[in-house]
């Protein structure tokens, strides 16, 4: 209570203000809770440790093998110490002895013994030994994960109002976010397009990413204010600060009420051109938020969640039920479902996916599906079956050229034949589209045009691939820039080509939901946008104020400019001028 107020800063990714006590997930050895056991449980506890060690060994050997293949055995040797720790008899004996003496959970004893050794090493002042201390930490985390059965966070269910502070959250971690109790989210790594950021947005949880040293500067139990609009993070606020933010929070919420008034506006420009403003979703329950915010359909339904955070693959029926639920609720609007995009930063726990040094350029999305046709076919069958319940379209992610489309279509036809044979109904005119998120695909719209029914520009990856910037690496995420003139030229080309060939084209990346890009995209000829549901009312307000001629003028101006900063300044000023003072303040330009 007497702790001094400190301020930290990060990248704002999900608006709103959250105030609550912090729960810190440290990157170092995790805290493990003490639990008593009976003498008769001893052999069971020892056995679970042995199993965890065995499982960890398999994991490490696998990583080591693939590293040896990629970089040579010299680098793979970095795991030697961890492998030897797994077989260290002294360690095992010490743990068993303490287990017998103290009769508490094996994970606690394991954790405590390792901590002791880590401390002993840290005391010896030697850079090599510091590295070994890190080895012990890594080893400890791996074993603990297998010992407890899942990630630390997943094991923890939040029962009180919390601000979650972590280095990074994996997709399976973010899946347990519960917005009733998690009032704010802060991560040290990453930029605005990481999974954690997208999830926080879809759950309407105020969030900040890229907050350096947050896990070491904030202690569990500290009161924390997260301002997901400005990126400010205040730890142990004074009474005055607390009052200030409480007022700010009330204001933000009042603004939200005003913006929501525009949600039922027709999506038409001032001069009457029809636009579609659709929603991106991840989970079927989000359909409620989609409808509450007045979306004109679902432009991107991500299906990864069905595959993550579980031990087995989702069955056809399970998927069918999920897709059907979304499609039925959205009738008569279109629902575009994307086939699974695994790989990259999203891994599947039960699959044999080896460690990759460059996962975003690796085995993911359509590449993965084409290599595992049985997994792909199960999903396609579920989608086709659900297609009779409404307007469902299928979208293929990470298309890099015509071959993948041809191959995927071949498999889709096979699945259709199977369904015909089994007399299971599906929509025979179902539309199939390609996500344009690689520069190579963006350049060959003419070749793709006869092979698909629609395009959707996935800006997150398109930007990452064209600027060659890993959007998760905080050291370079500043390079990730939607307004880069090179990126804008690619987008311009895609839209122009699509219009020339009369193929519907939309945009479903984060960029589509940034208010000041809206007039530019409109001016480039884009008519379909798919964004986080929360942003829809704001875009509906903007669209009703802009005329196409104005937007085209803005776009023509921007395409002549040479710097991202100048482009963004110009776009913000233009939007401000279009909206006027009152509306400008309302949408925050």
């Amino acid at each position: 209570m007497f702790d001094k107020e400190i301020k930290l800063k990060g990248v704002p990714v999900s608006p709103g203000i959250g105030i609550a006590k912090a729960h810190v997930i440290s990157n170092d050895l995790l805290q493990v809770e003490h639990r008593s056991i009976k003498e008769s449980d001893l052999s069971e506890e020892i056995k679970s440790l042995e199993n965890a060690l065995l499982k960890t060994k398999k994991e490490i050997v696998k990583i080591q093998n693939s590293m040896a293949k990629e970089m040579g055995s010299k680098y793979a040797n970095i795991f030697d110490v961890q492998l030897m720790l797994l077989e260290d008899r002294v360690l095992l004996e010490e743990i068993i002895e303490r287990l017998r003496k103290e009769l508490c959970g094996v994970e606690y004893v394991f954790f405590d013994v390792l901590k002791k050794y880590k401390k002993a090493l840290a005391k010896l002042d030697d850079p090599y030994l510091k590295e070994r201390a890190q080895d012990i930490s890594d080893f400890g985390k791996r074993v603990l994960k297998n010992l407890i059965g899942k990630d630390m966070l997943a094991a923890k269910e939040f029962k009180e109002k919390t601000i979650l502070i972590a280095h990074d959250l994996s997709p399976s971690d973010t899946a347990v976010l519960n917005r009733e109790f998690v009032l704010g989210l802060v991560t040290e790594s990453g930029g605005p397009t990481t999974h954690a950021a997208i999830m926080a947005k879809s759950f309407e949880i105020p969030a900040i990413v890229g907050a350096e040293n947050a896990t070491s500067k904030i202690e569990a139990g500290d009161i924390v204010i997260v301002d997901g609009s400005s990126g400010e993070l205040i730890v142990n606020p004074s009474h005055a600060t607390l009052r200030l933010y409480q007022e700010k929070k009330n204001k933000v919420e009042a603004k939200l009420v005003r913006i929501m008034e525009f949600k039922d506006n027709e999506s038409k420009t001032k001069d009457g051109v029809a636009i579609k403003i659709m929603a991106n979703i991840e989970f079927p329950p989000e359909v409620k938020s989609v409808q509450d915010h007045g979306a004109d359909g679902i432009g991107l339904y991500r299906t990864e969640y069905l595959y993550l955070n579980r031990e087995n693959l989702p069955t056809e029926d399970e998927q069918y039920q999920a897709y059907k639920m979304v499609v039925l609720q959205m009738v008569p609007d279109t629902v575009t479902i994307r086939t699974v995009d695994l790989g990259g930063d999203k891994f599947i726990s039960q699959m044999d996916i080896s460690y990759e040094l460059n996962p975003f350029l690796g085995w993911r999305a359509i590449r993965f599906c084409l290599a595992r046709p049985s997994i792909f076919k199960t999903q396609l069958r579920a989608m086709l079956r659900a297609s009779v319940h409404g307007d469902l379209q299928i979208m293929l992610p990470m298309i890099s050229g015509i071959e993948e489309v041809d191959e995927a279509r071949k498999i889709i036809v096979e699945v259709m034949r199977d369904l015909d044979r089994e007399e299971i109904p599906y929509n025979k005119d179902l539309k199939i589209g390609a996500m344009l998120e690689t520069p190579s695909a963006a350049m060959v719209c003419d070749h793709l045009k006869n092979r698909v029914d629609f395009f959707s520009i996935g800006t997150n990856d398109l930007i990452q691939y064209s600027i060659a910037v890993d959007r998760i690496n905080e050291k370079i995420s500043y390079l990730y820039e939607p307004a880069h003139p090179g990126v804008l030229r690619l987008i311009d080309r895609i839209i122009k080509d699509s219009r020339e060939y009369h193929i519907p084209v939309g945009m479903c990346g984060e960029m589509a939901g940034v208010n000041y890009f809206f007039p530019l995209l409109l001016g480039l000829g884009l008519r379909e946008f798919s964004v986080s549901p929360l942003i829809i009312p704001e875009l509906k307000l903007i669209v009703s104020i802009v005329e196409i001629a104005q937007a085209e003028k803005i776009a023509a101006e921007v395409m002549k400019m040479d710097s991202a900063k100048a482009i963004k300044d110009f776009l913000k000023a233009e939007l401000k001028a279009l909206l006027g003072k009152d509306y400008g303040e309302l949408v925050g330009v």
Partner: protein
Amino acid sequence: MKIVKRLRLVSEQGLHARPAAMLVETANKFMSKVTVTKGDLIVDGKSILNILTLGVECKDEIIIEVEGEDAEEAMDLLERIILKEDV
């Protein structure tokens, strides 16, 4: 059979990284008991944790004690690791 040798570590990395791993790996290949002493600390030569916490630096003097049927062969290999320049 019991063999005791007093040796000075040659590797510049100390007994921390690769040399430590090799020492423990080698010790574990034999039936004999292996202990390593530095100052007044005596540890099990088959435990990587023990060897690391011993904190042996380049040019430090250690005593290796090997006891068992295959002691001779074990000591021969262990000595080579301690006296090897770099790995």
